[in-house]
């Protein structure tokens, strides 16, 4: 491709994809950095339950009085919550990466099946992550390497769930 040669710097440093092992090394390094800085392991889904609870309060349901929230909603501050900050960081970091690679494109919904997949998949992930006290990050990437048995159990059952999910995906959502 002629364009490839026209912008060698852009090709080499901003557009070229990194290898999976490169991703693995950097993610492990960043996760360690986060633990050292915040004394708290990397997580993702904790704030989602908080945001949902906040929304319930907005429509007049006092979720904060539920035993399971026990006042966490009142204490929550987006800017002081490390997981909320890293979540927003993931969105903007990925956006920055695609923009600098000149690959950004709104990927529209192609069919009702996409919507159904997002709705059902999203609900299941939310419920599953709360049952296991964390998601693929909090109860897996920050748990299995931390020598917690629940990380191993969670990982094994994500794998089994993913196998079932793959069958459902090919059968109903494609």
């Amino acid at each position, binding site marked *: 491709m*002629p364009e490839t040669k026209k912008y060698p710097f852009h090709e080499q440093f901003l557009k070229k994809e990194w290898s999976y092992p*490169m991703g693995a090394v950097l993610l492990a390094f960043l996760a360690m950095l986060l633990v050292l800085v915040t004394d708290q392991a990397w997580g993702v889904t904790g704030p989602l339950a908080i945001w*949902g609870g906040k929304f319930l309060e907005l429509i007049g349901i006092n979720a904060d009085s539920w035993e399971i929230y026990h006042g966490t909603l009142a204490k929550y501050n987006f800017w002081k919550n490390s997981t909320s900050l890293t979540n927003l960081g993931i969105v903007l970091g*990925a956006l920055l990466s695609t923009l600098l690679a000149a690959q950004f494109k709104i990927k529209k919904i192609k069919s009702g099946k996409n919507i159904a997949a997002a709705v059902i998949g999203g609900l299941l992930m939310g419920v*599953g992550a709360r049952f296991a006290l964390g998601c693929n990050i909090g109860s897996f990437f920050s748990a299995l390497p931390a020598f917690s048995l629940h990380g191993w159990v969670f990982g094994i059952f994500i794998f089994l769930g993913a196998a079932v999910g793959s069958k459902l995906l090919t059968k109903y959502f494609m």
Partner: protein
Amino acid sequence: MSENATSSIRRSARAPRETPEQRAKKRRIQLSLGAALIVGVVLLGFYIQSQNPRGAVIWAVGLSFGYVLQRSRFCFTAAMRDPVLTGSTALTKALIMAMALASIAYLAIQMKSIGLLPADLNAENLDDLSTIPGNIRDVGVHTALGGFIFGIGAVVAGGCASGTFMRMGEGFVQQWIAVVFFIIGSVAGMAMLPPMKASGILYQEGAIYLPQLFGGWLPAIAVQFGMLFILYVLADWYGKKKAGEI
């Protein structure tokens, strides 16, 4: 498997019909927006630091997570799904590598915080495992059930928790819908936890920390890295077998 379906999960090699001029224009626009975004996140970083004494570092790490996940196409869901769906284990092997590297990091951090002797592992202050760096949480039927449900959801939605946020940044509308229902599901899960705990069957109290379980650091290290090694060899073998190399 149709092209349509894979594209929502993994970036496909699409070939848009664009003239070189259009492409150059698109590149200029996107690079300018990228430069503006850099200014934006730096300014936001200053605000975050003013609100949170560790904010700037956390912000930089979060942005780096997004950048690294996007650039390397590292996806926890695909690592779990691809062996079944496509027979590829390249990402699975990278995930095992990441787990092994993070294990080394946590080992160092935990040894420093707890102490090196087996006796240190039985110290009274370790009764509360949540004081140990890393997430060491209640394990039981709820963990297995949660993992199974989460695994199905992540594959169906086309991205796990980190993957959903990453794809939102990439411009996938599907993930913007998924995150709304992820939040609704989270609240539902929160509401279901107390009855699960009360049932006595679906939830077990108590976390299990491998160095305590095996009575020392060395056996825990042997089991942890031994298991990861076995899984890596298995994934490597399975991938080659599926690719027809064996």
